């Protein structure tokens, strides 16, 4: 029966009905305790852990490979664009 999860109370506020499931620790939480991040429900503690993990990983150096790839792909797309049009023109 789909109504079953609504009977479980919030893990932090036993007097409140559970409205969401934290997708990390699988605790049932109420509307106030649940936060969506990247489209996924988290409880307060798990959300803080996720955010901290992202902060520690992201540095400005992390952009270097992406920016290098973008520069290369821009160059390659210009060359390929010309190549495709020249080949198509020679067939037409």
């Amino acid at each position, binding site marked *: 029966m*789909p*109504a079953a*999860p*609504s009977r479980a109370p919030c893990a932090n506020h036993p007097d409140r009905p559970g*409205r*969401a*499931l934290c*997708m990390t620790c699988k605790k049932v939480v109420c509307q106030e305790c649940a936060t*969506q991040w*990247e*489209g*996924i*429900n988290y409880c307060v503690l798990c959300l803080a852990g996720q955010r901290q993990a*992202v902060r520690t*990983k*992201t540095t400005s150096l*992390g*952009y270097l*490979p*992406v*920016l290098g*790839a*973008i520069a290369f*792909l*821009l*160059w*390659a*797309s*210009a*060359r*390929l*664009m*010309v*190549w*495709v*049009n*020249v*080949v*198509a*023109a*020679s067939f*037409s």
Partner: protein
Amino acid sequence: MTWRSIGLVGVLDESFAVARRAAPWIGLLWLTALPARLLGVRLEYAAHALGATAADHGDYLISLGYAAALALPLALYGRLVFVRACARALRSGVCPGLDTLRVPPAAAACYLYAALLVEVLFYATGLALVTVPVLVVFAGLAAATAERCERPGLIHPLREILRACTHGRLLAALVFVFATALLLAEINFYFGLRGALWLAEAAGPFDAARWEHALRPATWWVAQVPYPEQKLPALLLESAATAAVEPFWLAALVVYVQQLWTKESGEDLSRRFELLRAGEAA
């Protein structure tokens, strides 16, 4: 967004409403895409005009290619802003404000990388034609999933695109619907131009011969197809039709991706329970 399973009609219905709500941002999408579109048309027309001697004019064509490639980041930024506007319009139900322009740097970098990779694959395999529908879907999904990229990376944006491809049949149906829409838009634009030409001729002295020549329909076997025979008007017509259909295509992909994420997060079940409780209470 209300609870429902992901389906073609639902996605199309919702995407029309979302595109209407985010309508002011369509102007930005068109404006930012204009330089890349016109330079692309210029390059294609130049190569076509040169024909078999195109390979002898490499420097000229490569300079056009670089100009068109350098216009791409602006076009992609406009696309990303429009997609953000659609996502916000879907969540809030109103037209989003100017803060939509402030795209997070990580999402912008990841999107630029993924979109350019798809662009390169498009040109590398475009002559085969088979890969075109798949790459068109990837290009749209790259924009629709960009907001999930909270840190720069080379793998994460591609993984998000592939994760969003779970409903292959629905995506194929969307491609078919929008390819038909593109064809209909081109035919409508063509007859619209011919109608305008006819009205201009009827209104007074107007040298229509040149325009008649430009818009002369192509002959295919014995039938005259509603499409200009001349290359430049045909390319411009294609660009105009693409610009007309693109906002709805992007809105449809945003709705699809948001519905997918809603299902993944369990939010759809939460909405379903609310509806059931409301039904029981009534």
